[in-house]
């Protein structure tokens, strides 16, 4: 049986699993904070901390193990005592800071640094917290002993009073355990419970191994003594002792009847160890399998696959689809009567198509993890800025390509910060305006056609049209009468570089990363952002992103003998040039005037130095492309068609050149270069 994790080495697996657990824990803590208390999720928190502690100890990461242990202790106590008077927000803060600490250490591990973080301060704080809640507990001491142990112990003691009967041997055994095995008293208990199948009557010393964990030391040095009556043969008994785990040595002998019946030698235990009373309630509490827990369990079922493998698979499937087309649509097959072949070919095409869909879907990851990170950001910001903000998450199950997830997290975080910092007003302002005191930020994702929309909406102060216009005038962004601009056009100015209407810089926003960077990052993954707002009511940022970067909609165009692919998203329109539209500027550059706007002309054959028969602007086709507000008209010979293409990076031996984004294989097996519209317009 091959382990599905065989690709991940020890520390890698530790990092992967611990990160997963931490994410889950964070989600849980934040979720329960919202739902009024950690009570419901205590078992889960306890378990996660316990697991992290165990794994970290195995890896010899003492600092992580210790701090996790301290949290585990707190939750163990809470779990057992079901205390309700705990300061939840303080506990939440402590747990979150532990999560942060461990995450920091794990990040160091991932980058190959040594773990240097000192958690002693944190550990002390948690221990102090535990001590504090313990003093609050009115019924900490004095709970009855657990009955099971009591019964078992009594039965042992009573047994010893009865003497050996006919046919029974009385034996004495002294048992020593391995030095490093730990919990010797419980190992002794194991021996007793197993020996029960051979022995009729049992007596042992020390006699309080169940109640007193300090007896472990005594057993370690002096051994554990058992007297018992049995009908089993000595061989069977030797076999039994040979099977005791971590047994270092033992002696076993049959003794005289009178010896066994003499009173038990009381063993003096002069150890200062704490007397542990089994004050805890019996058994583990039944798991409350609520809806939230079930959804967590559903989220957990992942396997880890190397992304590079996924990329290769994607690549290969892309080539397979093309190879399939090259075979089944081969020109040499034309006019041949090949019914059976075409039947088989149709089957092949169906399967390759399905295969492509499946591979695509494997790369799809739900936005949930990214979205839930925002919960933490909103919470921390709201606390520090003294605002009341609630984050509503909708459509977190929407899936997008993994690459896109990685690129969307930063812009999204920026938008959320903006919404909380600049959008949502302080409580007093909201009260004065008659709004609900708690501001609302809504983070929504939804599928629409081939795109995914992510919408960040707040019910804060909204954008001020006048302020933006004024700033735009100062920056010289407005050169014409601005009264005719629509609100959307005005709001779009905030996406321009260096545009900030917020004077004060806070800890969270305005760190020099403006909305222009957000817009640029989103454009880099083929998306677009738009802004809508109503003053006093709120702001809505809508981001449209493609499902995947690996496949784009492309327009294939012909220039000379070459075929280029232009991303459809960049194309505004295509048209044949009419005479009245062409103008030349004083530098003799050709411009095309359309609806009052001037667009520079870019002849692709000149740009790429290709010989073509179609050099005349009136003979070819003009493609108007636009990206990030810059536009140009590209001259191509002809449009060939529109299709989805699988984007491939240019091979390493080809020098990276501006204006080319990558390449793709066309249905007939020929290579087409994909134009980088942004790069083309820049030059």
């Amino acid at each position, binding site marked *: 049986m091959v382990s599905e994790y065989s690709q991940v080495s020890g520390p890698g697996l530790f990092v992967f699993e611990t990160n997963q657990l931490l994410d889950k824990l964070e989600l849980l803590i934040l979720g329960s904070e919202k739902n009024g208390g950690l009570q419901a999720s205590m078992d889960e928190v306890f378990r996660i901390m316990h697991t992290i502690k165990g*794994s970290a100890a195995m890896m010899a990461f003492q600092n992580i193990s210790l701090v996790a242990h301290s949290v585990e202790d707190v939750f163990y106590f809470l779990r057992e005592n079901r205390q309700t008077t705990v300061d939840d927000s303080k506990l939440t803060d402590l747990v979150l800071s532990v999560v942060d600490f461990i995450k920091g250490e794990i990040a160091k591990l991932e980058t190959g640094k040594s773990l240097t973080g000192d958690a002693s301060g944190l550990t002390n704080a948690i221990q102090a917290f535990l001590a504090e809640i313990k003093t609050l507990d009115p019924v900490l001491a004095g709970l009855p002993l657990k009955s099971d142990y009591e019964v078992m112990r009594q039965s042992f003691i009573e047994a010893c009073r009865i003497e050996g009967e006919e046919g029974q041997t009385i034996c004495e055994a002294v048992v020593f355990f391995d030095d490093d095995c730990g*919990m010797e008293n419980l190992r002794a208990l194991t021996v007793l419970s197993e020996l029960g199948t051979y022995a009729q009557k049992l007596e042992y010393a020390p006699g309080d191994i169940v109640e007193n964990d300090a007896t472990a030391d005594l057993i370690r040095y002096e051994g554990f003594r058992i007297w018992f009556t049995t009908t089993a043969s000595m061989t069977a008994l030797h076999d039994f002792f040979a*099977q005791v785990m971590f047994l270092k040595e033992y002696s076993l002998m049959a003794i005289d009847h009178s010896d066994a019946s003499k009173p038990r030698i009381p063993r003096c235990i002069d150890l200062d160890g704490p007397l542990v009373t089994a004050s805890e309630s019996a058994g583990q509490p039944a*798991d409350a399998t609520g809806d939230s827990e079930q959804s967590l369990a559903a989220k957990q079922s992942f396997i880890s696959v190397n992304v590079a493998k996924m990329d290769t698979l994607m690549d290969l499937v892309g080539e397979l689809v093309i190879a399939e087309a090259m075979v089944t649509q081969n020109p040499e097959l034309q006019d041949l009567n090949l019914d059976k072949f075409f039947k088989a070919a149709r089957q092949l095409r169906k399967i390759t198509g399905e295969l492509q869909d499946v591979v695509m879907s494997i790369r799809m990851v739900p936005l949930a993890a990214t979205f839930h990170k925002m919960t933490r950001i909103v919470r921390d910001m709201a606390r520090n800025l003294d605002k009341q903000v609630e984050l509503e998450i909708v459509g977190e199950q929407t899936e997008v390509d993994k690459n896109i997830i990685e690129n969307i997290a930063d812009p999204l975080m920026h938008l959320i910060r903006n919404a909380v910092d600049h959008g949502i007003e302080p409580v007093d302002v909201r009260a004065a305006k008659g709004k609900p005191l708690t501001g609302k930020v809504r983070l929504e994702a939804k599928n629409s056609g081939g795109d995914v929309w992510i919408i960040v909406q707040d019910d804060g102060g909204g954008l001020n049209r006048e302020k933006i216009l004024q700033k735009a005038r100062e920056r010289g962004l407005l050169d014409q009468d601005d009264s005719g601009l629509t609100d959307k056009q005005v709001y779009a100015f905030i996406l321009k570089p260096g545009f900030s209407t917020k004077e004060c810089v806070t800890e969270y926003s305005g760190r020099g990363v403006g909305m222009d960077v957000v817009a640029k990052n989103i454009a880099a993954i083929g998306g677009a952002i738009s802004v809508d707002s109503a003053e006093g009511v709120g702001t809505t940022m809508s981001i449209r992103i493609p499902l995947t970067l690996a496949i784009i909609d492309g327009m294939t165009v012909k220039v000379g003998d070459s075929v280029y692919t232009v991303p459809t998203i960049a194309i505004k329109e295509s048209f044949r040039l009419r005479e009245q539209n062409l103008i030349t500027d004083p530098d003799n550059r050709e411009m095309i005037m359309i609806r009052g706007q001037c667009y520079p002309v870019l002849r692709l054959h000149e740009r790429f130095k290709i010989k073509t028969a179609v050099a005349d602007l009136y003979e070819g086709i003009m493609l108007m492309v636009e990206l990030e507000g810059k536009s140009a008209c590209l001259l191509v010979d002809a449009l060939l068609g529109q299709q989805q293409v699988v984007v491939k990076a240019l091979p390493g031996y080809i020098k990276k050149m501006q204006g080319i984004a990558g390449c793709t294989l066309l249905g007939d097996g020929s290579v087409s270069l994909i134009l980088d519209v942004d790069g083309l317009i820049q030059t």
Partner: protein
Amino acid sequence: MKVLTVDDAVFIRVTLREMLERHGYEVVGEASNGIEGVKKYNELKPDLVTMDITMPEMDGIAALRKIKQINPQAKVIMISAMGQEKSVKESILAGACGFILKPFNEEQVIRGLSKFKS
């Protein structure tokens, strides 16, 4: 010797598997919680089970009890952490045939389990 490992931490399961397989044990199955553990015990009938105590869905002690119901002779070794004395006691009373403390090393595990290798 067929072993089933039950632990919610993948890391521990993989570590145990590697340790055991290096010493001629056959890890026939892994489970990440008690329910799964009992189910796999039923299917695979291993000679030995290593059972974590703290797990989601169904903890190790409950799973141990179920396994003991299925087969009173079942050999179940608990994997426990320091400080879990109470749970260890409970599991011994429920019929665990031994326990290994975390953090463990390869030598300890193999030494502990060697008693059951016949």
